[in-house]
């Protein structure tokens, strides 16, 4: 084989090896900037979460959700439950995944916390709802949690911890292990990269759905201002520092609209907790 032909065939593989190590893959042209890193990240995520079907994901998530419901109880207010579901469903219209049956609920505890279980089960606590001042802040927290499911963070963690093998046949026999891992992870929190990714795409989702994007930094600030409150401790322990999160969000300012819906009255009318 001629050398030039060999090089031509090997070029994509060599390029792939080189590109996989690059931190940033932005190219500019015609007055625009294109982020090729999105293609690389998408391929990476697809491979990492490839082996789990939506049905299996929902089975794992249901186990973890049922555990949360048993530990904390679901807040028995049909009006508040319906409202939180409507806010969540208004957001997921703009989410990436269309193969998820999203369900939202309020846990009956004053701890400030929120949880995302695979398969679309999203929980916020009574304590967190009381901390929010308007619908955009509640939507911001929900948008963050939605991203953990939309981007399959929990499933990727299962894969990285060697709890999934090709074909995932074992999952049908050992659902307990997968769900225990997810339950443990929901208490420990996701890794820092996943949390920052959930912030980044959460604020974009919030804006896309028509809410005021400052709802997320305001919700983070409210939680930060409650630091001395023992009910806030679980939330603080599970996330990157406030300063790091705000720094990361400020880099997105140029990509976000300046205004959006805040809906304080609607929030207060539906959440007399």
């Amino acid at each position, binding site marked *: 084989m001629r050398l030039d032909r060999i090089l031509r065939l090997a070029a*994509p593989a060599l390029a792939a090896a080189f590109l*996989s190590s690059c931190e940033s893959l932005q190219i500019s042209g015609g007055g625009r900037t294109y982020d090729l890193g999105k293609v690389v990240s*998408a391929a*990476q995520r697809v491979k990492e979460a490839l082996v789990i079907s939506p049905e299996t994901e929902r089975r794992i998530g249901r186990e973890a959700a049922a555990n949360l419901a048993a530990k904390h109880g*679901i807040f028995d207010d049909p009006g508040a439950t319906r409202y939180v579901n409507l806010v969540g469903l208004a957001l997921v219209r703009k989410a990436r995944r269309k193969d998820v049956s999203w369900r939202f609920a309020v846990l009956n505890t004053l701890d400030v916390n929120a949880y995302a279980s695979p398969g679309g089960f999203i929980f916020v606590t009574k304590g967190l709802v009381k901390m929010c001042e308007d619908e955009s802040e509640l939507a911001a927290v929900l948008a963050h949690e939605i991203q953990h499911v939309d981007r399959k963070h929990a499933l990727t963690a299962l894969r990285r911890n060697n*709890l999934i093998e090709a074909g995932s046949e074992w999952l049908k026999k050992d659902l307990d292990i997968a769900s225990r891992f997810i339950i443990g992870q929901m208490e420990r929190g996701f890794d820092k990269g996943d949390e920052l990714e959930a912030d980044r795409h959460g604020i974009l989702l919030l804006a896309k*759905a*028509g809410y005021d994007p400052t709802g997320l930094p305001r919700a983070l600030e409210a939680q930060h201002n409650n630091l001395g409150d023992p009910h806030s401790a679980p939330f603080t322990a599970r996330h990157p520092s406030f300063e790091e999160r705000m720094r990361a969000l400020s880099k997105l300012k140029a990509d976000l609209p300046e205004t959006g*819906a805040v809906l304080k009255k609607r929030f207060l009318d539906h959440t007399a907790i």
Partner: protein
Amino acid sequence: MSLQVYNEAMRIRRRFLASALAVLAALVGAGWARASWSDFWSRWSQGLGADEESGGSRRSQAVAAVRGAWDKEGAAADSSRRNYSAIDKLDRLDISDEDVASFVREGRLAP
């Protein structure tokens, strides 16, 4: 357009498409390589390189680690609690697409 010019234009177009496909393949391959490397490094750094013959697959060691951590935290009993009926109740919530559309309109959210 003469045949010669047409053939040349088609040749240039084929080469452009081939190059674009090569670039796309390189980007997808980069993501795949990154995931594979991350996977390999995660397994290697956790020291789970044992194969079947040495008495423990990577997965069985990982499963043991999950069970061990659970027992250590004393959370085994806690983790086995389930309230399926509460979750099933969420599945029976009567919220239609029209309800969501109406909620969006009332709040002047993005259509």
